[in-house]
């Protein structure tokens, strides 16, 4: 990547115009010259048509002149299009580069910058504010050149027709040239204020959205309304002023340019009457003069765009004009250091910009491979110390070194190659588990890291096991539905061994699994699944397609289940609307609802509308709405309605009827649940079980997992399933995983990097005891002596086996030693461990 010589935030807007675009600009200018020529021709033709062709009644001349006229117009139009395309290309390229460059710059800015900067600010800067700069850069050459050339061409033409008239009609423009910049200054001032106010507005909105729980909690709607309204009011005033000035520029310009025909009529009329001017020449003069107006207007508009772009560009760039605190790559181009991991802090202090001293003259020394636990009350500076050593905060006093090298002078590449950080609330990015686990390794290879090759599958699986997230990943794999032909070997193997699994483990699982059985009602499957009892191979038999499906409708009628099901659906709708009608559409509430959040308003309306009607009196369409819910109904999940016993029998009869009907009419439409066939509409787990689990109790899940793992190991399928699980998408911010899973993934990605220095800031706080001690075990046995560790610890029992414990209070280390030493001393640690005594 070619680094620009100047940081992007210090580049002027003009610096984007030429570099890299010269050939495009030249092409544009060429097109413009052709266009300008093509624009003058019609004027001359116009004169000749009147003076030569019409006056002298020459038909053939008329055809020729008109032909040339038409060709000129076509050429000018085509060229105009080409110029527009070139402009767009140049402008969008610049915008793309600005967006990328600025984002790149923003990412490297220090943490302190982001504490002050609302995310909305960054969003508007990158998304909207730069757009006008792109537009300007695209037209920076094309528009002025086109229009100035056009103006000159017309002006010359006018002079050739009649110098006196030309001087008079052009005399208007100097006045305009004087007035417009004066007004534009006012526009710019208003525009700058507008940018600021818009920025405040988006910050306010972001604040509202992120703090909505606080607003609801306090019922502070009025306070927030007032604050928001104040900004909107300010923006309102600024925009009015801004628009008025902008319009004034246009009006002044219009007025003066419209004055000029008036002068021509007056003078030209006089000259024509007195025979000093041909009529054709006057007409040509008038149209040429009128044509002056367009390029002029375009120039003025361009001037406004230019001014607006400059204001926005400078505002945006100056906002981000902070510089990164550390070089990304080593300044002298050397490879990143390979360090041992000895850490030393001397009189290390960190004072915030507001002057709050978070850590105060800390001294500590750790040899390669030593483990230090930081303990103390919250606010004692533990995390700050960890962040300073990880280079996330730039310490303000004293010195901290890694193998004797000053941490604040090391480049980011040096740090990420040698330090692994697990933060308090690790961030998991949208993507697959695999992507998130190799995230740190991938990042290291991007900054000239030592890790030549990316981790192998075995290494990844290994680290998943070390952090205890292996079972979770396996679970994700088991809950995946595979597409036909995606894993043909796995699928055929699973079908073969399904019976074996049932023989081996079936009795253990009987209590917690509902097996697919042709004669049994499935309480953990939907009514539709119960009816079809198979995987539909046609979209028309999936829920979305059913409404149009006449065949299925006929079947429901024949089997006498249309009305009972619609009626069940109606009951479900009214119960669900009653319970969840006024609750926001969060996933947590609608997990157990047959109605999706987005459908709720429609069902509310439907219930209201059909309140007085009986089912058979409703439109078929409304009946279908209810029927849809009836088909979606899962007795084991949708607890607001219980399954009527009569319905159960009807559905089971319906299942048999449906099967006969399908076999008779279209064998390919459905793959019925059969023990010797893989069911693609079900997860891998359900395929192994040939049924569904009936509980979400964690310890039962564990039990099932263990049986499945043992089985998969026997059948040599474990790795494949884990691989599938690693492709699980974690969702934005990892929302599809639990807090514990997220922490485990974050630890896994740091362990996978295996850095000489590990910094863990309450890295296991969301884990249960078992997972916590598993990771503690790993740290003690795998990493002691290998990597230096600084761990902020939220529970004292974790700290027992650390080489050193530092107890922090109010930014200081008040005591340091082994667990035993400190307990025997009966000092602060003892007090923390036993609570304050009396």
């Amino acid at each position, binding site marked *: 990547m070619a680094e620009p010589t100047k940081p992007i935030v210090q580049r002027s807007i003009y610096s984007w115009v030429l570099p890299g675009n010269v050939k495009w600009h030249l092409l544009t200018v060429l097109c413009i010259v052709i266009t300008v020529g093509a624009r003058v021709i019609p004027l001359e033709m116009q004169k000749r048509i009147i003076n030569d062709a019409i006056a002298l009644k020459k038909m053939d001349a008329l055809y020729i002149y008109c032909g040339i006229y038409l060709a000129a117009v076509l050429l000018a139009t085509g060229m105009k299009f080409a110029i527009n395309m070139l402009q767009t290309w140049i402008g969008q390229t610049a915008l793309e580069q600005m967006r990328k460059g600025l984002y790149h710059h923003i990412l490297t800015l220090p943490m302190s910058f982001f504490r002050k900067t609302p995310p909305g600010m960054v969003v508007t800067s990158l998304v909207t504010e730069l757009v006008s700069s792109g537009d300007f850069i695209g037209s920076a050459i094309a528009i002025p050149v086109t229009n100035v050339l056009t103006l000159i061409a017309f002006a010359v033409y006018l002079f050739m027709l009649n110098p006196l008239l030309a001087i008079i009609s052009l005399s208007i423009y100097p006045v305009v040239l004087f007035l417009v910049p004066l007004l534009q200054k006012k526009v710019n001032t208003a525009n700058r204020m507008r940018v600021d106010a818009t920025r405040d507005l988006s910050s306010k909105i972001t604040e509202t959205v992120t703090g909505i729980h606080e607003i609801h909690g306090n019922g502070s709607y009025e306070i927030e309304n007032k604050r928001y309204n104040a900004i909107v009011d300010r923006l309102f005033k600024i925009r009015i002023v801004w628009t008025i000035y902008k319009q004034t520029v246009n009006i002044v310009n219009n007025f003066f340019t419209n004055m000029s025909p008036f002068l021509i009529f007056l003078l030209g009329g006089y000259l024509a009457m007195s025979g000093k001017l041909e009529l054709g020449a006057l007409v040509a003069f008038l149209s040429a003069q009128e044509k002056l107006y367009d390029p002029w207007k375009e120039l003025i508009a361009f001037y406004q765009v230019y001014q607006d772009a400059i204001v926005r560009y400078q505002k945006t760039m100056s906002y981000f004009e902070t510089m990164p605190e550390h070089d990304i790559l080593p300044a002298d181009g050397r490879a990143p250091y390979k360090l041992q991991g000895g850490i030393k802090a001397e009189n290390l202090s960190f004072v915030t910009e507001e002057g709050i001293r978070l850590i105060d003259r800390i001294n500590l020394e750790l040899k390669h491979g030593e483990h230090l636990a930081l303990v103390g009350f919250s606010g004692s500076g533990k995390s700050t110390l960890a962040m300073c050593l990880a280079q996330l905060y730039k310490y303000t006093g004293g010195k901290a070194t890694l193998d004797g090298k000053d941490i604040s002078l090391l480049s980011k590449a040096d740090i990420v190659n040698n330090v692994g950080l697990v933060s308090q609330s690790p961030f998991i990015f949208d993507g697959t588990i695999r992507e998130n686990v190799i995230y740190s390794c991938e990042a290291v290879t991007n900054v000239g890291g030592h890790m030549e090759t990316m981790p192998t599958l075995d290494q990844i699986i290994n680290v998943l096991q070390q952090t205890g997230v292996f079972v979770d990943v396996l679970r994700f794999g088991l809950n995946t539905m595979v597409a036909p032909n995606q894993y043909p070997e796995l699928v055929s193997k699973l079908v073969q061994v399904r019976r074996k699994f049932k023989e081996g483990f079936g009795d253990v699982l009987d209590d917690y699994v509902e097996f697919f059985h042709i004669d049994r009602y499935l309480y953990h499957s939907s009514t539709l699944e119960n009816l079809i009892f198979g995987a539909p191979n046609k979209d028309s038999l999936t829920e979305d397609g059913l409404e149009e499906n006449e065949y299925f409708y006929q079947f429901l009628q024949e089997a006498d289940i249309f009305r009972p099901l619609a009626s069940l659906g109606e*009951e479900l709708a009214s119960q669900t609307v009653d319970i969840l009608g006024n*609750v926001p559409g969060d996933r947590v509430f609608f997990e157990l609802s047959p109605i999706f959040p987005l459908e709720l308003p429609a069902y509310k309306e439907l219930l209201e509308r059909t309140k007085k009607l009986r089912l058979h009196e409703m439109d078929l369409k409304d009946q279908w709405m209810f029927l849809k819910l009836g088909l979606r109904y899962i007795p084991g999940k949708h607890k607001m309605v*219980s399954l009527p016993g009569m319905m159960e029998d009807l559905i089971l009869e319906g299942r048999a009827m449906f099967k006969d009907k399908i076999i008779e009419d279209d064998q390919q439409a459905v793959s019925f649940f059969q023990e010797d066939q893989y069911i693609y509409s079900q997860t891998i787990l359900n395929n192994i079980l040939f049924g569904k689990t009936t509980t979400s109790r964690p310890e039962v899940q564990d039990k099932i997992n263990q049986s499945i793992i043992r089985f998969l190991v026997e059948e040599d399928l474990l790795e494949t399933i884990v691989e599938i699980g690693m492709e699980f998408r974690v969702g934005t911010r990892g929302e599809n995983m639990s807090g514990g899973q997220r922490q485990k993934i974050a630890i896994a990605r740091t362990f996978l990097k295996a850095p000489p220095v590990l910094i863990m800031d309450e890295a296991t706080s969301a884990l249960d005891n078992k997972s916590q001690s598993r990771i503690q075990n790993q740290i003690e046995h795998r990493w002691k002596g290998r990597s230096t560790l600084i761990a902020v610890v939220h529970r004292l029992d974790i700290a027992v086996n650390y080489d050193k414990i530092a107890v922090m209070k109010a930014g200081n280390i008040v005591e340091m030693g082994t667990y035993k030493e400190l307990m025997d001393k009966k000092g602060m640690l003892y007090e923390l461990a036993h609570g304050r005594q009396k």
Partner: protein
Amino acid sequence: MSLHTDGKNSEIRCQDSAGLTCEFSQNLDILRQVDMFSALPIESLKVFALMSSREKYKAGDLLFQQGEDDGQAFYIFSGQAELIYEEDGKEEIIRNVSAGEMVGAMAILGEVPRLFSLRALTAMECFLMERDKFRSTLEQFPDIMPKIIKTLIQKIHARERNFIANRNPACEACRSNLGVIFA
């Protein structure tokens, strides 16, 4: 179709043809009997009832374990269980709990490790509420928090009163533990 009229006029009544009420209504009935919930408005109770779940346990199953933070409250529908306190590897049975009791409700209010374990003595059926779901629901009905705090204060007060009434005047050390919650 008798189903038709049912859903419309009744507030919450779901019965199948055998006259069994649905799980949701049963949950709602339970919540109305539990101190922490009984005083809350019906709209919130309905959501709470929907968000709670039902689980079956076998004799010997651990419902929760000392030292863990599982974040669940249990209401025992049927069966019996024992509260166990473990110290230095020795189990001490505190007492038995049986149908109709709510156990471990503190866990849905905040993060605390269990002080006891609860083990099923017989086959059991429980109604349970998870902390995350409880909190999400609470956020939707901000005005019920004060009511819950009020109930909580009454409970703490009753407990303290109990402690004082049952104090052992001979035990010097015990006395320093009386009457202090926030030191």
